[in-house]
């Protein structure tokens, strides 16, 4: 992935627009099922993936659209997948929590919290065996760090010096429960040391900070220096899924975090760098149009035929 500032901004915008337009669909009752919104976390996926190649792997979770898009998944098949359409990247079988693209090293999402960690470690192991310098990234929420797979994965990654980057997007809540209420120690990154894994805590709303930390971690991994755990402190603007009344937190807290909007922040940075507002404006319009086109494509696409449920149980 390229790292030029405009591309970086564009990548965040695409995610932002997708989430916004999906929420509109949901409000209009046009979305089949749950939406796990990525609004507010755009800098995480984009910062991390901006330093990865197509040959690097990512493993996502239930909140995966940001990851898919940042790693380069094409908009239309991604969007169609979310709506469960036949034109989706998985033919609509995976749906909102499951998309993948082998050509880009996107090894899928997951409906099981934490289950992606061992899968990421396995991809890192394969990459290490291949010896071509590829790395694997696992995205997971802070809630997932309480699952047993977390400790097992950190340990084996350290023991085997795997080129694995564990990216914890700490958005403070796991479903309706504040993370702080389920732990004895609030920083996920602090758990790495005990397993012999390097770690950093990063402002997850600052795409440049995320990108820089990712760069360090990727460099270490490619150099054979082993795994890193990055904890990105961030916030999900929406509920656990759309429609969640968010009784577990205050509207003030939400407003505070929205004021730290990662997209607006990077936009200000670009303006300060001298990028003209016009250029950004037309980029924003272009992205909105592109996403709208993808949404239309997805809406207009047919559902997969029910009988296709019987196919592909086995290779």
């Amino acid at each position, binding site marked *: 992935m390229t790292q030029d500032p405009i591309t970086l901004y564009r990548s965040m915008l695409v995610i932002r627009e997708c989430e916004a337009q999906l929420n509109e669909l949901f409000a209009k009752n046009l979305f*089949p*099922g*749950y939406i796990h919104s990525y609004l507010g976390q755009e800098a995480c996926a984009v910062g991390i993936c901006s330093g990865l190649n197509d040959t690097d792997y990512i493993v996502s979770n239930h909140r995966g659209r940001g990851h898919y898009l940042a790693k380069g998944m094409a908009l239309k098949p991604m969007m169609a997948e979310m709506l*469960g359409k036949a034109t989706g990247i998985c033919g*609509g*079988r*995976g*749906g*909102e*929590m*499951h998309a993948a693209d082998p050509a880009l090293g996107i090894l899928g999402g*997951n*409906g*099981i*919290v*934490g289950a992606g960690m061992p899968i990421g470690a396995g991809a890192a192991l394969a990459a290490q065996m291949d010896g071509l310098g590829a790395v694997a990234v696992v995205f997971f929420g802070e*809630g*997932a760090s*309480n*699952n*047993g797979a977390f400790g097992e994965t950190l340990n084996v990654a350290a023991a085997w010096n795997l080129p694995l980057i564990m990216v914890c997007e700490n958005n403070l809540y*796991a*479903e*309706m*429960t504040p993370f702080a*209420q*389920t*732990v004895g120690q609030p920083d996920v990154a602090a758990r790495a040391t005990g397993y012999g894994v390097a770690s950093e805590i990063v402002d997850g709303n600052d795409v440049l900070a995320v990108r820089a930390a990712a760069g360090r971690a990727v460099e270490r991994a490619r150099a054979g220096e082993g795994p890193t755990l990055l904890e990105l402190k961030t916030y999900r603007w929406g509920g656990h899924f759309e429609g969640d009344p968010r*009784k*577990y937190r205050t509207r003030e807290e939400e407003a505070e975090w929205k004021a730290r909007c990662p997209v607006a922040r990077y936009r200000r940075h670009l303006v300060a760098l001298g990028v003209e507002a016009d250029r950004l404006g037309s980029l924003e319009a272009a992205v909105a149009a592109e996403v709208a086109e993808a949404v239309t494509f997805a809406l207009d696409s047919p*559902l*997969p035929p*029910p*009988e*296709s*449920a*019987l196919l592909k*149980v086995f290779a």
Partner: protein
Amino acid sequence: MPTKTYCWAIIDAMREEMARDDKVFLMGEDVAAAGGAFGASRGLLDAFGPIRVRDTPISEEIIVGMGVGAAMAGRRPIVEIMFIDFLGLCLDQIANQAAKSHYIYDGMFKMPLVIRTSSAVEMGIGPHHSQAWEALVGHIPGLKVVMPSTPRDAKGLLKSAIRDDNPVIFIEHIAMHRIKEEIEDDEDFLIPIGKADVKRAGSDVSVVASGLMVARALAAAERLAGDGISVEVIDPRTISPLDFDTISASVSKTSRCLVVSSSHKNFGFGSEVAAEIGERCFFDLDQPVRRLSPPFTPAPFGRQFDQFLNPDTDAIVAAVRDLMA
């Protein structure tokens, strides 16, 4: 008698039993402050406080495992595993610990542990939120597996499960949460675990239906009655131990048996019933025991697939007609 939803029946059962016995407590993900991911523990935190109604980390293995330990130390835990699809993360604690401790330790420990979990079959949420795994846990000796199909059954069975000294897996169906039924307003209203319920009497065909399928079997029976086919609908209510006596008594009478469930055909609930009834009622049967089940595939995302994969009333009607042919 008050009318309650399936969801409130579950809440009521827990509230009554927690009030009755202060050893009973509840823990699981989002069960306390949020009142349950599906609202099935609303009000319990307020009623019983944070010591007895606890939000856990996302740690399925210890949710069950702490239940095991607390039960061995004298408590009567109710633990919640949000979706039955997550049992793969805690099956060791279920199958090797909870189910075997009474046995291994020669009866020195009781294991009054209820594991409440939900099946989301047919809700279109995709492959990791759509499974019917009652047969999987049914294969483990030492466990009781309960699967209520109506609000009243849910309440009476859950209360029995909480009072039981053995580990009980209690499988709720999210798709049934809002259905309503009149329920006895009696703190000691219990439905016994291990007893099947004849939900409709009939004389031509026995339909054994569980969970979501009970209502469809009843609807099918109604339609078939119009054609003069009299269908007996049996809801086992308890998947393990299965009440074969009730089922075989029915089949001996009707000579025909259809088993309908959300459990995959292969190594599933239907196979267990068909094997045992096929043996017990061999000389009474006019036709082999038939199974109506989802085919042997995962469930893709989307309701259209669920509808295609899972038996509906039409399919039951057709299968019964076939049996009568």
